[in-house]
């Protein structure tokens, strides 16, 4: 296949393309899924606040 010999190397070619295609399809299908939640934003703000407090103390 494609001028390659045996089964292992052509399989690697095909699997390489298929795995890249899997990444593309997964990324495209889930492009807008899993956005940041209010809870995560709040948590990040708490950590930022704590860090600022420590820095101010120092």
């Amino acid at each position, binding site marked *: 296949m*494609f001028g390659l010999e045996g089964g292992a*190397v052509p399989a690697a*070619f095909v699997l390489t393309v298929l*795995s*890249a295609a899997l*990444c593309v399809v997964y990324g495209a299908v889930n492009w807008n899924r899993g*956005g940041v939640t209010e809870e995560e934003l709040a*948590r990040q703000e708490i950590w930022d606040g704590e860090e600022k407090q420590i820095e101010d103390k*120092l």
Partner: protein
Amino acid sequence: MSIPLLTTVVLIYLAVIAWLSLRAWRTTHNASDYMVAGRRCHPFVMAMSYGATFISTSAIVGFGGAAAVFGMSLLWLTFLTIFIGVFIAFVFFGRRTRVMGLNLNAHTFPEFLGQRFQSRGLQGAAGLLIFIAMPLYASVVLMGGAKFVAEILAIDYNAALFFLTAIVAVYVVMGGIKAVMYTDAFQGSIMFTGMVTLLVITYYKLGGITIAHQRLSDMKELAIQAFGAKGHTGWTSFPTLGSEYWMVVVTTIILGVGIGVLAQPQLVVRFMTVKSDRELNRAVLIGGIFIMVAVGVAFIIGPLANVFFYYDNPATQGQIALTAAGRNVDQIIPMYISQAMPQWFTAIFMVTLLSAAMSTLSSQFHTMGTSLGRDLYESALGRRGNSMLINKIGVLVAIILSYLLAWGLPVFFEGGTAIIARGTAIFFGICAAAFLPMYFGALYIRRMTLAGAFAGFATGIAVSLFWILFVHLAESKPLLICRALFGVDSLAAGSIWAAVDPLVVALPASLLATVLLNGRGRQVAEPFLQKCFRNVR
């Protein structure tokens, strides 16, 4: 090569790096910005940075040269790197790491592990391992970059080493991970463009995809004649099962790097730099395409260089790539570029290789520095101070250490280039054996104990070191310790075990130790586990 053209390209490249670094520096205000980019990184920047960090100059030149010898069987590594290194890593490790990292306010990979198992000792030990082992990896990447710059610009190695280190040092110390990731994204884009162009021109010159492959397949007898005794069966087929070449291809290159990628501290920390799973989902798409090109092209071009050198290049007609390059594997790709590609592309490719070296180096310096500053000084030793300043100093110390190693190593290792790929493989192997069982357990096994984590960590390191020093011939022979103690190059000399990569033995041993000792010792309290696993799906 045209020096004015090269100078212009390099100056434009450095100007863009300077602009990106300045932008990063202006938006870096606190420790969170410095270590995890404020957890607000763009998915394109994250994905490109992940890929560019993974692929160094040695991955293109060294592994591309290795592919010219071993053949296209190395494409299995491309498959594993995309499937495991991107898909599995981002979807099954990355998402949990991001959420748990936010829940625990972790800024580094050791801090993530230490917080998860409630142990500053574990954080310090993991940081110490990184700080001890990574300078070797960083110094060999630095050596590779400096050697390459010295050759291209025809300057002294030490001068090239100094300027390369100084340029990367300025932007990593000043701009932290933002500077690292912004420049990585730019450098990754250059690498992507350079590699695609290289692939297209190569196939065009050799008569098209199928014809080029067929011409290489027809050279089968030459491959068997040159390397048949070691198991070579041709450049477009797999080595003989169980042969020496099979062991190297499967255990060191395919499994060592393909699985090792899952537990690299400099890569894992990138999962904590984005604000939501949406960014990771988008990064899967970008990362998959980038890795396919950046890793895959070198493994196609390397073997095809044999066709060019043997048939199409008058100066080397009748010689396979290894012979044409004076039996120096690391010279195959640079020689192929200079003799097969148009002159304008040579300048582009030089910047591609420079990008590959600098993107990996910057991440290594940053990871080592934060291990010293955050994990060892601030956490394990319990010292307080301006966290960003402490980590800047840590980065600076790591850079100086790597610089001194890269300056000293060529004195002890003549030629120095073979050690680049070896240093990379050693670091990947040790990290995977020490961290992977504990990292997986941290994400998926709620009841995993600190004893189990430590058991896998210690066993992974111990078995890796034993195998490197006394069994794996590729390392035990040049290191000479086995010969000094036992009078032989390897305790397994003459057997197939001497060719088996340390990871293949150390990772199962580490896994076994983790399973056996897990459950012993103190359990992590349920309220804390709920905090760790909040929103982890």
